[in-house]
């Protein structure tokens, strides 16, 4: 009984430790969002990126009024964990109350959000190799395929077919970016003095198309297309922390 109690304690100890908020969480709780951003940023740099950390960082950035950085954090958190509740709530809040716009997900994207892009790819590759081996192994052995082999083949092909829309949706989800500047104009042409068609707000998510002449063609949530400067947006697929756009590049 004593041994069992010790084992239970050992199992519960990490869970209890996990519930204790860190310094960043405490700073966030007392409203010191700038400190929370600093601490969570340092934590991500030292301990690695997780969806929960990115989502928490997004919350703190949003509280500081940095819509663009917050949306980048939340979108990246959803790339790692499509069901992260904090990131999903943050994006919903931004859309409903924060004036942010985001393209409505297509059916393939909704489907792809069930798993991450890497998991879809791994699943598809595993199904493909299972099918290939089910076909190749009986031939190599010179024996007819067994019934189990046939069923495995059908199952693997079904999984592979189910992965196709997930892969397609994941690819489509990757081709998005967040507007990072406050005053961004959608331009008619990819030139410095291209005619501004309309404005897009910081934090808006746009679909990206082809790049040209230092500009990227984008499509907004309401379907309008135009060109924005490459430095005015940040791709959803990228390194963990949002880019610091004010930092000068090294000569």
């Amino acid at each position: 009984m004593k041994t069992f109690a010790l084992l239970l304690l050992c199992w519960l100890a990490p869970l209890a430790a996990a519930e204790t908020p860190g310094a960043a969480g405490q700073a966030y709780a007392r409203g010191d969002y700038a400190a929370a951003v600093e601490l969570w940023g340092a934590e991500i740099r030292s301990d690695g990126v997780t969806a929960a950390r990115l989502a928490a960082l997004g919350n703190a950035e949003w509280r500081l009024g940095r819509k663009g950085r917050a949306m980048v954090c939340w979108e990246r958190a959803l790339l790692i964990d499509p069901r992260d509740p904090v990131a999903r709530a943050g994006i919903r809040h931004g859309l409903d109350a924060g004036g942010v716009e985001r393209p409505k997900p297509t059916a393939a994207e909704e489907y792809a959000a069930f798993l991450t892009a890497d998991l879809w790819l791994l699943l598809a590759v595993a199904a493909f190799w299972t099918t290939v081996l089910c076909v190749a192994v009986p031939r190599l052995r010179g024996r007819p395929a067994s019934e189990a082999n046939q069923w495995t083949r059908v199952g693997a092909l079904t999984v592979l077919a189910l992965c196709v829309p997930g892969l397609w949706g994941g690819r489509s989800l990757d081709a998005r970016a967040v507007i990072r500047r406050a005053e961004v104009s959608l331009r008619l042409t990819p030139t410095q003095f291209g005619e501004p068609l309309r404005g897009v707000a910081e934090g808006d998510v746009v679909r990206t198309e082809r790049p040209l002449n230092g500009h990227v063609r984008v499509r907004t949530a309401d379907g309008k297309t135009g060109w924005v400067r490459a430095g005015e947006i940040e791709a959803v697929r990228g390194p963990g922390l949002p880019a610091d756009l004010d930092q000068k590049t090294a000569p």
Partner: protein
Amino acid sequence: MRRLLAVCAGLVLGLLARAEDRVSWEITPRVTAPGQPFRLQIMVESDVVLGGAQFISREIKPPRGMALRLSGQIIRPDSNEATFNFSGVAPEQLGEHVIPSFNLRFARKAVTVPEIRLRVSDQVAYRREAQARAELVLPDRVFYVGELIRGAIRMRGGEDEAVVASYGLESLAEGFSMAVTAERQALPDELGQGLQTTFDLTPIREGVGEFSLNGIMLVQNGEAGVFNQGGRDRPFAFRRRLTVAHVPERGRPPEWNGAIGRFVAEGLQVSKDRPEVGEPIRLRAILTGDGNLDRILPPDVRGDETWDVLPATERRRHAEDQRMFVYTLVPRLPGKLRTPAVRLAAFDPATKTFSRLEFAPLELTVTGNAPAQVDLVTADPAAPAAAQPKAVTGLATPEPNRSSPFFRGSPAGSLGDAQGFWSANAAALGLVVAATTVTGVLGYLAAHPEIRRRRRARAVMRAALAEAEACRRRGDARGLAAAVVRGLQTGVAARLDAEDQAMTQSDVERVLPGADRARLDGLFQRAHADRFASAPPPADAGEADAGLALLRRLLATR
């Protein structure tokens, strides 16, 4: 002696005297009607070679109301003469108009042009409708700071001239911001042929300001067409003194927020007719009309016990002459609720009065239950408002330590972008395909042994053929027969799936129908002569050829 000195003094004075620059000008016609186009020609003759002219247009300052533009110059590099042509349009005011003295700057020297005078008289017969002309369309009244003034330049063609293009529009507006909204648009049909450039003018400070517009239109005589390239420039210039005042404070409603013009409250729209308690919806108030839509501050909409009002980003629509004010409303109670009132006031610059606008509220049905902590139920009206900061709705509590075993990784790049992922898979697939193919080929050969047997038989036949030809060359009839028979027996045995030594002339006939039996018998007897007691029959001349042909035929048979 005195006469000689006088002559010498005259010569010296002649040498020392400096030749003066001669400048002359001519205006055609000399007297013009108001608004009539004219041409000005200035001729310069100097004592030195002049060189190129510079900054001609900057130096000349035409009088108020007169348009003048350099239309051509003739200066030869090795000449001391220069001619300048200007095209202009006379002012509307009668009397004598003076172009002040100005300098013509050349590469070598500057030449001063004296005052130039133009007389404008109403005694001159001039039909204004015959020639192209420009008109400035701008209201003639007091303007107000922040007002949107729509103006236009109408370049109207005449009976003898057509306006085909315009360019070089320059404006100088002290205390105004100006934006060209459309250039070179065709005039409405009722105004005749011509072009129109429209602009928006916004006064930005109080006082009297000078507004000037200059430009050039390209006019063509007669009918326009590919063979009529005789277009010429005609300048236009407008100068107006505009008076700007602030919107009067007297009678100004408290909800006035910069609207100047005539507006209509089109109505309200909501993103959802039946929201739940706590569910944010968007409220759009659409304002249309003629005025400074872009400069109106959004009306303040306050939350109350039934609605929370949050700021929202509004989207402006410039093309449709309308403005949309967007608010995010959060219902706090269930039931039938009316949206908060959206009110604003506008100042009409034409009538100089204020008017109030109110968007008719919408009635919505809010579903769900009232939350337990609704403030209005428990709040004491006398208590200080907003003692506790209200939490921002929607954001979930961060859980940075939460982790999931399935969802790990980096958002930097997907597995598909990893170096070697696709090449490794492709290499493995290639190996599997190669192994399967090899296994399949070997299995097929094992299942069909006749393929290997026939291949071996063909090799033996080719060797027998070579040996038979060698025997023929050295005249060995028996060796030739033995080689041919060995080849035939091997080839036929492979066809019939039998042993080589057991093959007879009849078997050869089965495989090679039409073979000469007598020659076959002779070949076999000579080849197997050592097995028989009787001597083999002598070989005839054609037997060797027939035997070799038979062997070649069998070799060619598939």
